[in-house]
C-alpha cells in the first residue's frame, strides 16, 4: 500500500533531478481508509523526522484537514491520534505520483507504487 508515511519518504530519482524533487504530487488517486493499531510512542518518535509541510499538503489533497499548518509545540493524545490516522490509515490504492521538478510519473496500481526507472534514467 501507499500511505502518507511512505509518501513522506519518497522522492524522484530520475537522472539529474536532485532539487525540488519532493514531495511527489498525488494525482487521480483512489483511497481507502483502514483502521490500524494506534501506538502513540511510535507516532511521537517519528514526528521529528517528518517533512511536516509535505504531509499536511498531501493530507489536504486527500480531503483530510485535521492537521495544523505548523507542527505544534505541545503534543497531546488527540493530536497524535489525528497524525496516526493521516500517516497510517489512509491507503492510496490507485493513481499516480508526479515529480514537481521533472514531471516524471510514478504510477500506483493495486496499492503498489512503481518507482522503477530504466537504468539510464537513474541519477
Amino acid at each position, binding site marked *: *500500500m*501507499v*500511505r502518507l*508515511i*511512505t509518501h513522506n*519518504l*519518497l*522522492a*524522484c*530519482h530520475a537522472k539529474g533531478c536532485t532539487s525540488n524533487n*519532493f514531495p511527489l504530487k498525488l494525482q487521480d488517486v483512489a483511497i481507502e481508509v*483502514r483502521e*490500524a*493499531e494506534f*501506538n502513540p*510512542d*511510535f*507516532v*511521537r*518518535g*517519528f*514526528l521529528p*523526522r517528518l*517533512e511536516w509541510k509535505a504531509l499536511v499538503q498531501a493530507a489536504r489533497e486527500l480531503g483530510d484537514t485535521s492537521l495544523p499548518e505548523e507542527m505544534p509545540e505541545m503534543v497531546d493524545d488527540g493530536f497524535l491520534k489525528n497524525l496516526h490516522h493521516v500517516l497510517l490509515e489512509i*491507503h492510496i490504492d490507485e493513481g499516480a505520483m508526479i515529480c514537481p521538478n521533472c514531471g516524471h510519473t*510514478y504510477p500506483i496500481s*493495486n*496499492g*503498489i*507504487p*512503481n*518507482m*522503477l*526507472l530504466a*537504468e539510464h534514467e*537513474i*541519477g
Partner: protein
Amino acid sequence: MAPQVTATVVDDDPQSYESKHVHAVYDEIAPHFSSTRYKPWPIISQFISSLPVGWVGLDSGTGNGKYLPLPLERPTDIWTIGLDRSRNLLTIAQNAGNVTRDVVWGDALGQSWREGAFDYAISIATVHHLSTPERRKLAIQRLITAVSPSRGRILVYVWAIEQDEQSKRTIPQVADQSNGGEDVFVPWVLSKNVQGKQNQNRNGKPDTAPQDTNVQEDGSTTDRADAPRIYNRYYHMFARGELAELVEGAASMLGLHVGPLSPEAPLGIEIVQDGWERSNYYVELRRWKSS
C-alpha cells in the same frame, strides 16, 4: 540426485543478465518461494529488536516481506517499508504477517527516497544477486545514503562460499575467484505438486541461504510427465572479508571515514559487527557525525 550449484560466468550486460537470471526467476517462483521462507535468522531478529521506538526503516530486497512484521514482541514500535524488484513477491509482501504493509516496486540500485530519510536499512540476501563488483558496491552506497547521517543503522546479509556443514551443498571450485568470490547458478526446483507440500520444511531450519527444498523429495517421487521445472538463479558467493571490503569502498566513495567516531572526520561509518552465520556473511554498520 539433487541438482547442484554450478559455476557460471556473467557473459552479458549485467542488467540484462540479472533481469534474466534473477528477476524473471523470482517472478516465476514467487508463490512457491514464499511458502518456504518463513523463519528469520537470529542476527536479523536481534538487530531489529534492538531498534528504538519510532524508528522507520527500509528493507531493500524484501522478497515476500518476512522481516516486515518484526520485532514480533512489539510490532508497532517501528515501521519497515519493503522494496523489491519482483512485483509478484510484493503482492505477497503487501500482506506479510496478515497486516497491511507498504511496499515499493523498485531496484536496490535506485534511490527513490529523500536522502537520509530512514533510521535503519536492512538488505538480506539481495546484494549477492548483483552481477558485478561495481553494482554490489553501488547497492551498499544506496543503503548508506538512505539512512540518517548521524545515527543510521544498517544490516547486510549475503551468501558465503564458506558453507554450513548441514547445508550438504557442494560448491564448485572452478570459478574465477579474482574478484574474491564466486559466480554461481543455484537451482530452484519447482515441482508440479507444490500445493500439497506448501508447509513442509526440512529440519525446520531458518533460511536465508538459498535452499533447494523439495528436491530430493519431489525428484524421487514424481514421474516424467510431472517432472519438476528447474530455474537457475544467479548468485555471487562472497569470500571471507569481501563484504567488509565492499563496505569500505562504498563508504570512502561517499567521503565517509570508516571506523569508530573520530573528531578528525566530520562524517563516518563504523562496522560494528562483521561475521558469519550459517552459510552467510553479515555486517552491521552505524553512521556517525562528529559534531
